[in-house]
Each structure stands twice: as C-alpha cells, then as structure tokens.
C-alpha cells in the first residue's frame, strides 16, 4: 500500500520535497514509519518531530491504512 507523506519546516528541507508517496507494507504502524523515514533521510535523527496521521496527532502508536496522509511536523522556534 501507499501512504502520502507531507513534510514541514526543517523536515521538508532535509527531504528536499514537501510531499511524496511512499510504498509501505500493509500492516505498518506510525512507529515503523518513523524508522523508514530516518533510514531514508538520516539527518532526521537529529530533528525532533511528531507524526500526524490523517490530520490528527496521536499520543499512541497507530496502524496505517492505504492512502493515509502522514504529516511530519517539527517544532518551530522562530518569532
């Protein structure tokens, strides 16, 4: 199945794109998505971020479905 990744702030800079489709295994959960992302973009290890699945930030692990939207959100400090 495929999930739709959306990147923000520093995460988008590290990835070099603001969104992309990623082929993932069918029963993948949010934690495993993080691992995949950090494997693909090693610099993500240095950034704190949260994952929002279908526009909702979950405090627990979530199992993903085909075509889910995963937003990768770093904190912004500027003002």
């Amino acid at each position: 199945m495929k999930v739709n990744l959306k990147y923000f702030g520093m995460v988008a800079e590290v990835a070099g794109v603001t969104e992309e489709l990623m082929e993932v295994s069918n029963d993948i959960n949010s934690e495993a998505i993080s691992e995949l992302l950090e494997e693909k973009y090693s610099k993500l290890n240095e950034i704190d971020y949260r994952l929002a699945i279908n526009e909702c930030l979950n405090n627990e692990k979530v199992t993903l479905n085909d075509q889910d939207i995963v937003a990768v959100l770093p904190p912004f400090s500027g003002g």
Partner: protein
Amino acid sequence: MNLNKQEINRYSRHIQLDEIGTAGQEKLKQAKVLVIGAGGLGCPVLQYLTAAGVGSIGIVDFDVVEESNLQRQVLFNSNLIGRNKAHAAKEQLEKLNPFVKLIPYPIKLDYSNALSLFEQYNLIVDATDNFESRYLISDAALLSNKPIVFGAIHKFEGQVTVFNHNGGPTYRCLFPKHPKAASIPNCNEVGVVGVLPGIVGTYQANEVLKVLLRIGETLSGKLMLINTLSNSTSTIGINRNEQEIEKVLAQKNLSDQYALSSETSIEEISVAELKKRINQGEYFDFLDVREVHEQPKIEKLSGINLPIQKLKVNNNKILTNNTLISYCQTGIRSKKAIKYLQEEKGFTNILNLQGGIQAWLQYETQEEQMITKIS
C-alpha cells in the same frame, strides 16, 4: 466597564458587528493580555490588540531594537534603534490608542518571575523566539490556569494554536520533548521572510479576540500550519497528553531543571558578574562563536574566535587554563557550543555569557549613563 463617547466612536466598526456589539467591546476593555516578545510576532499582535481596544496590555521584552529587526518588526522605525523593545513598543502604541493601558516589562521572562506576572493577566500571548521560553510559558500558564495564544515561524512557514484553553492541550502535549538544542534554528540564524510573522501574528491577534469575546471556534486543540510559499494551510488535531500535563502539575513551582531536563545543564554568567570578577583580578579564557565578520569585537573579551560550524574541527585550540566564557551576539549560539563541548568533548568549567555581546553593550551604555549622571 462602560465605554465613553469617544471610545464608542473609535470602536464603532466592532460595535456594529452582532458578534461583538457594545457588550463585546466592553469585555475587551476589561481584558488584560500579556504579550511575551515584542519582535516579529509580537509587533502585529500588539498593534491589533491595541487598536482593538484590549484594556490592559503587558509587553515583556528585554531586547533592544536592532536595524536588522526593521525588515519585519513594523511597529518600530529607524529612530528607535538601540531602544528597549518593551518601552519603544509602549511609546509607539500609545500614539495608536490612548485608551489602552500599556505596561512595559523590560525584563527576561524566567522561572522566578513568570508565575507572578501571569497571575495579573487573563491571557498570555507566546510571541517568543526560543524553545526555553515556549516551555516556560506553557508550564507557567498551566500552573496559573491561563490560556495561551501561540505562534511560531520558520523561514516561510508558521504554526498557530491556542493552548490550555477550556481543558485543551498544552505545548507539551504537542511537543513533549524539549528539542535537541542544535536541531532547530531561530530566525537570526536562518533568516525569515518579513511578511510571515505579520501573517502569523495577525492570526494570533484574531485568536486572542475570539478567546476574549468567546465567539467562533478557536484553534484550541488544533494546530494551524501556514506555508506562504505554496499558499497552503492545514489544521492538525492535537489531543491532551495527561501524562505530560501531570508531570508539570506535580511540581509546586517552576524550575529550570524540568524545562531543560533533556538538555545538558549550562551555567550562565551575567555581564555584571563577569565584569566584577574581572575587576577583582580573576582571569578567564574566552571563546567567541560568532562568525568572523560579526561586530563589534570587544577587547576585554578577546580570545579564540571559532564560529560554531568550525567548532567540531578546531576545538583543540580552545584554551582552558581558566574558566572559559563562551559568547556570541545574544547568548544562543554560545549555549549550543557549550552543549557540544560538554557532551561530545568532555569540557567542564564553561560559562555562557548571558545575553551575549548585546547584553555587554547595553551594560556599558548604562554604566556610561550612570557616570555622566554622577559627574
């Protein structure tokens, strides 16, 4: 709190709205809002809240207006360069609306003053530019039960939300961990398009009015993301994280330690203290982590100049015969340098110069003024 004739005329476009009316405008007049940070976000927030007739507005900022601020901090102008931002903002805003009580606090918000300051206000606006303040504001607002209207920016992107409102989430529910110090830069380091804080700050002002007036749907529990390059906005739902909230509520007082628990502890020295110790004959080694071109160079603080990027390859040149003082323009980069040197290189006995060269210069100006007054 009744409005006088002149106020009724001034706020007539508000009063015409069914959602506001005279009663709403009176609510605004009664309200007390504390704006922390009179920078990129703080300027538009302050301008719109003053114009809207929020009765009392506190302005917290220890910093001074710099030329490089004027590209985005449109409340200020060239004549105000060098002035404290809280005082300069008050002066400018008074011209906009004489019916608003403006209270400047030219201080740094910290663990000793946050709670007593928050007690005096109904709502807190987080318009700061660093994580330490953001966690401090979140914790202090939770402990004093005040809502926060939050805004943050990065290059061309912004985040806006309302925290701690009607049982909604706090900043720690969104980002429980204090970010790794060096991972997320601020505007002074990476740049920011000037219009962005104008947009984000204006959204914040709008949320403040909605919370005060109890109209519409606020961004409580929702993080609004704005991208000015793609003109896209999205909203992400945030849930309360009871565990994180409990951790904060469990402490009776605020302490640096908790907010910085994921950080190495970094000791700081104030300009006054450093000067005193130098005058007493103590020797220090100095590490200037600013870029080579950054001015001014201070003779009394001369030592090795190693910009933060070069620290990793050249740290063997740093002298450590005496206590090492790490400094930069404002004290932020020098903290990162200390974090790196302590964690990766095992350095001890390093102090961060609080407020950096800016604080040094400000202190010297104050000293001169004192001397002129005396003579």
